[in-house]
């Protein structure tokens, strides 16, 4: 039987130099010609969950205390928890070395397949963003990590800013999987003038460790 292969909604034209097979995903660890940044990294294979509960305060997904205020996020032990509203939180498993499974409890839904997930990291990240959205990433009142739920290249997205500091800047963006082709095209097009290049997961792993 042929090996079952999962397909990411994100397709880069760059040539992969190093890949890893993980849960039937072919994860690119490094691409040819990644450049000096900024970088666009496909994280669509990273597990993502939706948790809804009328009493979120009583929940501690993966042992994490969920932020109280919608828009606030917390990154702990490789899990990014993003408070969306009164009853809902999105959970991204960002640590490739510690892949988690969905808790077997009623409020959880696995949404890995629902969205594409990319990280946009490095210098000029927010200059790229301002070509695609009116969201104010540099608002001095917002301390990273924080969540925006709003349009990016006209598409509703969840965008978590993890760092706002110069060359170390970075964010994670998710949107409906179906927009994969056009969203990636528009980000790469917007980032062309800043030298944005696709990069492998290793680049992201290194970046997030330095946060």
């Amino acid at each position, binding site marked *: 039987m042929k090996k079952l292969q*999962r397909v990411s909604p994100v397709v880069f034209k760059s040539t992969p130099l190093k890949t890893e097979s993980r849960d039937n995903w072919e994860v690119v660890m490094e691409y040819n010609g990644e450049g000096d940044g900024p970088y666009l990294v496909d994280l669509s294979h990273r597990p993502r969950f939706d948790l*809804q509960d009328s009493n979120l305060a009583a929940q501690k997904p993966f042992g994490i205390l969920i932020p109280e205020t919608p828009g606030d996020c917390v990154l702990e032990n490789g899990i990014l928890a993003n408070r969306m509203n009164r009853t809902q939180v999105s959970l991204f498993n960002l640590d490739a070395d510690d892949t988690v499974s969905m808790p077997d409890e009623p409020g959880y839904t696995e*949404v890995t*397949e629902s*969205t594409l997930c990319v990280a946009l990291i490095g210098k000029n990240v927010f200059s790229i963003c301002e070509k695609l959205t*009116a*969201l104010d990433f540099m608002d001095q009142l917002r301390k990273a990590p924080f969540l925006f739920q709003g349009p990016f290249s006209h598409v509703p997205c969840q965008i978590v800013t993890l760092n706002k500091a110069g060359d170390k800047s970075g964010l994670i963006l998710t949107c*409906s999987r*179906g927009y994969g082709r*056009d969203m990636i095209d528009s980000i790469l097009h917007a980032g062309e003038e800043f030298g944005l290049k696709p990069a492998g997961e290793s680049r992201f792993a290194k970046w997030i460790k330095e946060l």
Partner: protein
Amino acid sequence: MMNRFNHLPTLKVDTAQKIAFIYKGKKYYGVKGDTVATALYANGIRIFARSLKYHRPRGLYSLDGECSNTCMEVDGIPNVRCENTLLKDGMVIKEQNVKGSAENDWMSFLDKLDWMMPAGFYYNVMHKPAKIWPIAMKQIRKAAGLGKISPDFEMPGKFDEIFLNTDVCVIGGGPAGMMAALGAAQKGLRVILMESRPWLGGFFEYRSSQYKEGETLHNRAGQLAKEVESFENIRVFTHTAAVGTYNNNLVTGFQIGKKDDVFNERYIEIRAKSVVVAAGCIERPLIFDNNERPGVMQINCALRMAKTYGLLPGKKAVFSIGHDLGLEAALELHDLGLAISCIADIREDGQDPVLLKKIQDKNILFLKGWVATKAHGRKLVKKVSLASVDGQVSKTFDCDLVVASAGMTPVTGHITVAQGTLKYDNHTGFFLPDQMPDKMHAAGRLLGLNDPLSIEASGMLAGLKAAFDCENCSIGEIGEAKKALENLPGPVRGTKLVTAPVKGRKSFICFDEDATIKNIKQAIEKGFDVPELIKRFTATGLGPGQGGIPGHNLPLYVAKYQALPDISIRPTNVRPPLVPTLISTYAGVNHKMFKITPMDEMQRKDGGIFRNIGVWQRARYFSNDLSCKKEIENVRSNVGMLDGSTLGKFRIYGPDALKALQRVFVSDMSRVKQGRIKYSAMCNDDGCMIDDGVVIKQGENDYYFTTSSGRAGQTAEWIRYHTRYDGWNFALVNLTDALGVINISGPNARKVLEKVVDIDISNEAFGYSEYKEFKISDTIPLRAMRLGFVGELSYELHVPSSYMKAVWLMLKEAGKEFNIQNFGVEAQNVLRMEKCHIILGQESEQRTNLLDVGLGFLWDRKKADAKTIGAVALHQAEKDQTRLKLVGFKMENNSRAPRDGALIVDDKVRGYIATARDSFSLNEAVGMALVEAPLSKIGTRLTIFEDECGDDRIYGKVVEMPFYDPEGKRMKM
């Protein structure tokens, strides 16, 4: 080519770097930094274009694009404002709106026929008799209009867009604007500074007058620009015109790209907490006979020609001015070699004595209380007549340049567009800001200030006020800045004169529309007594200059002509874009954002022809035969695969999930059984059908349901909205993109599927309307449903999107021996139509209710009405005999199918065709139509009217539905 100055510190051109361009087929050279207009001028071109109505010669006037005088065709693009467009190597420039050439225009005879075209002549003349109008209109349209463009012209260049957020946005990069930016930035705020010229400095930048001891205004502009650029928190956008100001301090603009930029133009949208408007002043045109003849230009135009572009604007000049800037310009230009015959100053007094002394020292004739009355010369200025302001005494001077200006007028568009109001100020003669919009502040010359230090102080004050809006400045600090301004010279007295003492037949108040003072008088005499009405009756201010020339002259003249005791009338409204730009700039990059299914690439490889359907791109056909005959026949006789991934898919769970389902679905959802599929519909409060789909119970208080593709985006909000007061505990998750859908249909569908799955899928084990969850290859989780939308044995497989390709390839491989084929959305449309299964939006529209389309059986009438959306309305509709009904029909005499949307008529419209096709399964044309109840009886003849059918009609007959397999055996096989 004219000689250029190359020693002036204010120059913005590099005379050593030549730039070649083509004008009317001939090669010319400009220099780096030239605009198209200055390059042409340097090459001796004086007549740039002809005017709209009278084809009068037009030339350089403002240098800031305030009128259409220098609109030309550049690189195939008409109406390019040459005064604002930087010259680029290889540009091809042509005249526009000329028959012949700008120099010799055959249409110039129209100038003599102005008596035939009084104000509003369109309204008065061309409709009597009415049949003249269509003929006249065509001729007028041929003669008028600026520039021509081919319908298939493709705009060259790159257009970009950025969306910015800031604390303070400053409009205007002159001294006041720069000080405002510094004031706010020093408070730690984020500041955006927009300047329409390619450099900062504004009114100071090109002037050599003293700022303070030992320092020129030009030097000061440089210092301020450097300081501004040293602040990391100030973002400077030069060559960026602000074109709109909206509620909540949204500012829009467009930026012209530099050589190394990745864009030619880009649209800028700024959301600011506070806005400072420091847009300065333009000159108020002096109105006299032939005041737009090439050779007549404004003070700033003449001065900047020399100081910025190194070009002496003429040889011998007469100045007719009303502001000290005119005196300063005359002195500077005189020193640069311009012979000045006379300076006529409208003002009797109030001039700067230092300037007067210098004029006297240079023996230049200076006339106080005099004004230009007529420019002479058929195409170019040859001489000018001056008269005392009372018109009693006159003189004539030979000259090739008339520098004319009535004074200054503030640029208030950004304030009024944002709903600020203006009030006439008798001291300055300006319409000054009266009530400013919330969190918007004015600064600089537009307040009537003229003293350099006052201008800067007002900028600082505005910057601090903006900082206060952002809660970063104290009232005390603002008080100090206010005091500093009060200790400096205040606004200067302005001139009141609007027109020279002339009759006005050839005195133009609006250059773009060839509107004269005489036209304004005509309009007033006809009863149009306020500027807004006069503007529309005479077209004054409606041209591409956006009212730059008539601007504040129009209300001033209207007040004067009617001898109003005070100037209570206001300038006409200006609207965005305040500066004209390209539609391409507004379009921006225009990324096409469509959703694709996981099978997109595979289907394209298989020859799929895609169409945009809502937010999705879907394979509609798989061959160039748009009737899809082979696709349809393959499903009816063999097996086909359809990508149905666009279906809306949702999980709803929680203790009150069932209550929510009961609320939105018309059926009794408590009867959804595990392992079974329930088809149902959603209605709105009017009972009109908005969605349909299937519901599955996948666990206790845990359901999975589908919606139509087009509705998926609204479903979650719809359910939440209609349960908002109940406090129910349930959760919704949109899984539309998480799961792809493969619909495998046709009599051989089971044979293909059973090769891929490990479970028993016989009719006994997996019957019609049943649901199963299982895994393929112990890995891929599948939800499978036995449905029959296309009227054949069908399985709908819901597959995790990332595995869709894998499953699709498995099915293709398994189906090879049966020659399995793709089928697209159009084939599905015909197949389901033959079965009379409806698609919302095709067999329904906004007013179509559940009963109209024959789905009343879905509605559980025992549910309490208030608990089902639309039930109350459906109860009422049941008794209503006037509603349209969905019927099936066949065409008479085996004729072709009518077009979708064609009308059912007798002496009135009685309904319309929903879907109709030539059916290959039935060998006849069939369709569904919504018709009035009396026409819905079986056997009724339907008369069908199609677009452009004239008196021809086609006919159909109402028949029983469904057309295909009425007993439904095939989908249950």
